[in-house]
């Protein structure tokens, strides 16, 4: 049995998407742990931004329930308003941002608003928050979700956060000047947009999972990349960083 949990693998995979010196919209839960791991391993100069108006170098010393918790204010690099923070997105100064979602489709469009017709929805989800803004303007969008057929769908019914829209140059046609999904990290695999279509392809399979199984749990005919890797398990250094970040063992 592996000496790490699925969530720990997802955190480490997410951490690997952060490059040194980058400015990252962090978000809660797994991404904030990923940011912490990245800072302690290969990206000591990454900066984390939070929508409420916080920028941090070191992640908070304790587990946060919300980004505005007192522990996230203490020792912040900057505590300001939402606008000075979130407008860094359209100003082109954010390298990557993490978001989750109820549904994602094969072009990386994400729905966190309405299941069914928005005029008479079957399920009302909480809405965008800052996700639509991160998806529109971060240089790279990093999505983290559970890999279920009802979540990875052919086409979302409502695009809260734009991926590649109809694929190809869909973003450019909509007026978006940069960005788009760079990786979708699930509990089974990593998907990335490939080719001119920008369709999400299977690029990496987590240890213990198979291409077959992953396809079964995907709501569209998932294509595989020319080369499909096995996601490297957390290295000792990564695991050590993760244990330092997650000292309460929340993700074990």
């Amino acid at each position, binding site marked *: 049995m592996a000496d790490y949990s699925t969530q720990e693998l997802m955190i480490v995979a997410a951490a690997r998407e952060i490059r040194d010196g980058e400015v990252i919209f962090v978000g809660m839960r797994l991404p904030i742990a990923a940011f912490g791991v990245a800072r302690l391993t290969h990206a000591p100069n990454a900066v984390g931004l939070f929508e*409420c108006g916080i920028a941090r170098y070191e992640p908070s010393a304790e587990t946060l329930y919300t980004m505005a*918790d007192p522990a996230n204010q203490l020792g912040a690099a900057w505590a300001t308003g939402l*606008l000075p923070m979130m407008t860094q997105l*359209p100003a082109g100064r954010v390298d990557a941002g993490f978001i989750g979602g109820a549904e994602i489709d094969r072009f990386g469009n994400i729905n966190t608003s309405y299941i069914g017709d928005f005029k008479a929805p079957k399920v009302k989800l909480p809405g965008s928050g800052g996700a639509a803004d991160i998806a529109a303007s971060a240089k790279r969008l990093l999505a983290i979700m559970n890999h279920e057929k009802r979540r990875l769908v052919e086409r979302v019914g409502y695009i809260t956060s*734009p991926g590649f829209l109809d694929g190809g140059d869909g973003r450019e046609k909509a007026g978006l000047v940069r960005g788009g999904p760079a990786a979708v990290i699930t509990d089974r695999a990593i998907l990335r947009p490939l080719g001119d279509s920008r369709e999400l392809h299977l690029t990496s399979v987590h240890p213990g999972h198979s291409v077959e199984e992953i396809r079964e749990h995907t709501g569209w005919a998932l294509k595989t990349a020319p080369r499909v890797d096995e996601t490297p398990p957390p290295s000792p250094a990564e695991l050590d960083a993760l244990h330092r970040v997650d000292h309460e063992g929340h993700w074990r």
Partner: protein
Amino acid sequence: MEEKLVSLPEAIRAHVSDGDCVVLGACLEAAIPFAATYEIIRQGKRGLDVAAPISDTSSDLLIGAGCVGQVTGAWVGNVSSGLGHNYRRAVEHGEPHALKIRDHSNLSFGMALLAAAYGMPYAPVRTLLGSDILTSNPEFRLAENPFSNGGEKTVLVPPLAPDVTILCVQRADVFGNCHFWGSSGVAAEAALAATSVVLLADEVVPPEVIASDPSRVLVPGYRVSAVCHVPAACHPAPMTGRWQRDSAFFDDYHKRTRERGGFLAWLDEWVLGLEDHDAYRTKLGASLEDLRIKGEALSAPANYAAH
């Protein structure tokens, strides 16, 4: 200068009317004026347009209590526990009644307040492009940037001027001058954009304390309509340097409000059955005291001497 210190019930009676657009929760997850949320419910206000980027459970509560005609914002739910059951019931089944939703993203919401605060006719933004928020909220307009060569697309956000913005602040004087620190979300813009501003001060201090640091003033007293002294007005939300978040309370709310009946029982227990925020604090008892921040991590002083 005119003193503005009144009780919270008085402030809500005087400054919140049926049908008003009310900002509650401008600081996102922190400093949400739940005491005002509860008092609005007690006073039975109706048809409110509740406006906030993210209100944690404040909007969900008001919706379940039947106070809300429209939600203007980017997110409604329970930040640490999941979906907002009242929000779902209202939108999916019209229970207790139907609801209009004016969809925003966090950024477009903030820019709408900024436009009103700064007297701009609208705010052109480079967000929402490609999002169905442009479909479900038809008040946005798509336009070309007249300064671009290639017809760059831009979204025009109309101003949002609330009738009243209700804010929790760490300290205020009786004239409405206040200090706020920690991340402030859209509090400054919401205050400057509003017709009335109501402050719920965790502490009321002598005017000299506020005047000692004019750069920490969120909104000047002359723009404030009422100051209420309500310690822990933010509970169960946190407040920088004052109160930790009561995440167990949010969890309990989530579990107990899954069904309409459970919500009504919760409402009786925590809002309708309590006379005011003093009674609420008393009911919380020791658990509230546990959330009080007792440590000190003080800001380095800033000198304002002129000589």
